[in-house]
């Protein structure tokens, strides 16, 4: 009984020409497992950010005015531009996955590079905003300066959650950018074919998820009450 798999060595390398892993029977099963695994991981990410949203919800409920005041300190124009940039990167990521479905390696590489450009732009704007907060002494802790003594406590809470939420989001972006870079090299090498490109699809899921987190973060942090 000959079989396409090499003799049962513990380590069995899959490659572009032979993507079917030994523990799977067919590529559809392998793709479905990869997608289900990714979505399970995204469920954990939803609850990861969810825990911080719970803290946000409790304190915004307790100190509505203080949080509105603190939220107005954030630069809305840069926030809006940043959201647009991230939505743009989501578009280019989706196009990269679309290219992968058609097996066009060069197209994948191009749109992955575009996604990285948008991602870098987002992180750049974010870094500027962090510098701006540092400059304005809005980093919670001993160096925190706040005009209205009434809300100096809750304002620090707001900025604590601002930095924890956007910080975790930025870390997820950086991890995403690193993965995109690796994937860019592999795409140029032609590792992704129309028949097998689960890695690109999962990268897309991850990137879109990080974008969805920002879709919630932007209104909750920047738009508490701009009326």
């Amino acid at each position, binding site marked *: *009984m*000959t*079989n*396409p*798999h*090499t*003799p*049962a*060595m*513990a*380590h*069995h390398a899959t490659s572009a020409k032979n993507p079917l*892993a*030994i*523990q*799977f*029977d*067919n590529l*559809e*099963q392998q793709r*479905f*497992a*990869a997608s*289900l*695994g990714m979505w*399970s*991981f995204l*469920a*954990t*990410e*939803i*609850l*990861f*950010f*969810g*825990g*911080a949203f*719970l*803290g946000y919800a*409790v*304190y915004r409920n*307790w*100190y509505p005015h203080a949080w509105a005041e603190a939220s107005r300190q954030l630069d809305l124009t840069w926030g809006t531009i940043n959201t647009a940039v991230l939505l743009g990167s989501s578009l280019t990521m989706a196009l990269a996955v679309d290219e992968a479905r058609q097996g066009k390696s060069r197209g994948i590489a191009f749109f992955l590079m575009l996604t990285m450009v948008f991602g870098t732009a987002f992180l750049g704007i974010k870094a500027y905003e962090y510098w701006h907060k540092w400059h304005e002494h809005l980093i*919670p*802790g*001993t160096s925190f300066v706040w005009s209205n003594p009434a809300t*100096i*406590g*809750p304002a*620090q*809470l707001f900025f*604590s*959650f601002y*930095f*924890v939420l956007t910080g*975790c989001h930025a870390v997820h972006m950086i991890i995403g950018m690193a993965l995109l870079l690796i994937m860019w090299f592999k795409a140029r090498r032609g590792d992704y074919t129309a028949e097998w490109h689960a890695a690109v699809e999962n990268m897309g899921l991850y990137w879109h998820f990080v974008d969805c987190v920002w879709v919630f973060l932007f209104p909750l942090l920047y738009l508490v009450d701009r009326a």
Partner: protein
Amino acid sequence: MSTPESVMKLSGTETHEPAVGRVAPHSAHAGDQPGRNYLNADYNLWSWLFTTDHKRVGILYLISITLFFFLGGAAAVLFRLELMTPRGDLVKAESYNKLFTMHGIIMVFFFLIPAVPAVLGNFLVPLMVGARDLAFPKLNLASWYIYIIGGVFTIVAVLTGGVDTGWTFYTPYSSTYGNTNVLAAAVGVFVVGFSSILTAVNIIATVHTMRAPGLSWFRLPLFIWAHYATSLVILLGTPVLAITVILVGVERAFRVGIFDPALGGDPILFQHLFWFYSHPAVYIMVLPAMGVVSEIISCFARRRVFGYKFIAFASLAIAVLGFLVWGHHMFVTGQSMYAGLVFSFLSMLVAIPSAIKVFNWTATLFKGSVLWNTAMLYALGFIGLFTMGGLTGLFLATIAVDVHVHDTYFIVAHFHYIMVGGSVMGYLGGIHYWWPKMTGRMYPEGWGRVAAILIFFGFNLTFFPQFVLGYLGMPRRVHDYVPEFQILNVMSSAGASILGIGYLLPLGYLIWSLRYGKPAGANPWDATGLEWQTDSPPPTHNFHEQPVVLTDAYLYEPWEPPAQGHLPQTPPQAHEPAVVGSEGQR
């Protein structure tokens, strides 16, 4: 390929053809020469440290988890000795606090949560569903490395001064007032959380997509149902612990007030976030052990598990209801009275699925042919002690009694009855039940039973007096107590030493059996289930031929194979319909 065992290894009833057919799909592995298995496939360290074989990752976990179990146990023996006397005289207050914190953190995060899923789950889930490996073997290895990294952080935290906040890290003590290595321990706990997340993702993907042909959901062994439910709880709970630990770490590292009342923060918010994970975590710890018990009871009672569907859905019900009840840990903090009543009611409901399981296990013994060997002793011990653990949980769910017994030794006794009486007995039962399959060797039956009985009585002597201590009002985590509690504490310490010896025995004879144990055939207990249809120890890719499941699980009654061709109607999720007999049409 050894032919199915026709003669019953042990004395007793009729023989029968095991309920598994044979088919050779195009992807069979003639490469596995006879005599080659996952253990002797390769001997160098590289093949172990970089293995993607789920069985080897299971063994790696077995070794590291045993190390942590005895580390945590040593801390327990130390402070049990301290508690022999009312005065705090064996160790200083600081070291006592560090000891119970180390015991808590190591036992909860580094033993109980990973034990059954990472050792037995990793090893058996692919075997039981008829797959060649877990869905993501590399992730599985990464899970072990993450576990080791988390362990290193925690051990470094312990060695360089220790942590004295208790395993619950309550603020504001952990974030502002405590001055021990809270940060290092927090990072350790944060990292080890991802290890169980990866195990959960693996189990979910494997159970959904890689079941053998004919293995529909209601033909799955209950071990798989329990691990599937546990994986859901891990997935939906662990990340909340991750963000909680980050918030405490940020508050402590940058002197920022997230839970600090001085800035208007709320220390009870930390408790909400912490217990949202940590109560479901107790179900992560006990559900897999329940899965193990279902397997053992059914095999050694030679009976199909009574109410299979009820036990399966009870596991899922526990997983879901487990997320609604965390407030019963906070009845006496500033939580509102109405929320307390809601949590008390929901906590009552979560007791029902556990009750259903216990009754079903007991009913499985009825009209069975019960063999009292080691694994069965552990399983029956599990049922007895878990019943007491579960029922004493009702005292804590009843809000009026909890006000009195909260943070006393009544609580310590309750959760040890479930964790040690339940999870550890289940884990040891599983280790003994599948030891022949994992190592190809039989353990010494006599010594096994001695250890099981010793553990059962040592356990009861250790923790039953603590119920009485609890209602008398002895608070938790005290190294210096009022004199009238001494008698019960001495009894508890005596029990702890017996329990300690009881745990050392299996360590001894199991290692001994690796070298000198009788070689175990493919199916020493003549159990149903796919893991018993391959060699012991199994070849690297589990099966020489892809098994096909023809009937329900645990079919120990006499059974005739269905007419040829009329076979699995409900193909597993992602396969094309696998009709046996038509070769190559896959």
